[in-house]
């Protein structure tokens, strides 16, 4: 199977994204270890109730990506709190991957993404 997108990336790539979901600071961690290359990564909104009640958590979502780069068969694999699941699924649904050339087979392996919802002290340096 031909792998894409894994050759030239550093072990961990940290990207601070300014065009984030409302008021959230967004950080991306990548190691280039996945079959498909992200094209447009949408960050989930931090649920208002979770923010209000100071709840943090993680959600891992796994899915297939079609030839055009659209995620489908999206499912939560792990979740520490259900309040984060819907925003995570919505974010995946809105995200896109690079389309595959016609001569390249669509990988059968699922792609997974973990969202970590955190609250940082606003008074810290």
């Amino acid at each position: 199977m031909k792998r894409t997108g894994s050759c030239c990336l550093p072990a961990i790539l940290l990207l601070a994204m300014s065009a984030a979901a409302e008021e959230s600071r967004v950080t991306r961690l990548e190691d280039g270890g996945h079959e498909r290359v992200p094209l447009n990564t949408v960050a989930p909104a931090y649920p208002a109730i979770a923010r209000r009640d100071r709840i943090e958590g993680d959600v891992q979502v796994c899915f297939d990506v079609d030839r055009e780069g659209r995620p489908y068969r999206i499912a939560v694999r792990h979740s520490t709190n259900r309040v984060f699941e819907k925003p995570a699924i919505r974010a995946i649904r809105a995200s896109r991957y690079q389309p595959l050339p016609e001569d390249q087979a669509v990988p059968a392996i699922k792609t997974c993404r973990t969202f970590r919802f955190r609250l940082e002290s606003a008074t810290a340096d």
Partner: protein
Amino acid sequence: MTIAHYLLLLTLLGSLALAQGTAGQSDATAKTVIGPGNVDLADGAAALRIGEAEDGVRLTQRGLATAGSRRDRVAGYSNLCAGLVMLDRLDEALEACNRALELDDGHWRSYSNRALVYLKQERYEEAERDITACEGLNPNARTLKTIRAMYRDAVDPVSPSIIIDDRRDATPDEADR
């Protein structure tokens, strides 16, 4: 109107004592009510509910002048406190809340309203005390959760952060479960 003002308005509306429909009842009687007994208190509460703070305060003050029962006066002063907070007349609001609590020290809405006054005055210790009192009286009140959140945001503000982890071995942090 800023988000903070909007949130405050929503919280205050949730904190209004139910003068409408109960005004005029004596403390321990009158299970059947045919219309509000104190029209001004009821209209004042209705005005405050739709955010008409000036009308709400005026009508509530007029209603309080003729309020007979202790229950009406408690609801009236508590609503007056809420309306005055909306108008940013904090010292008067505090006085109204104090009057309500002098009449009934178990009135959770008055604690909740007074906590908002203290928050706006940045008197956080007193706000915390009233929020705690309120939680003891009505722990499930939705308004209370909002006020608790406003208190936390005031004394320990946080900002949300999302980490998108595409690493192959990424798994949810078990410590969060």
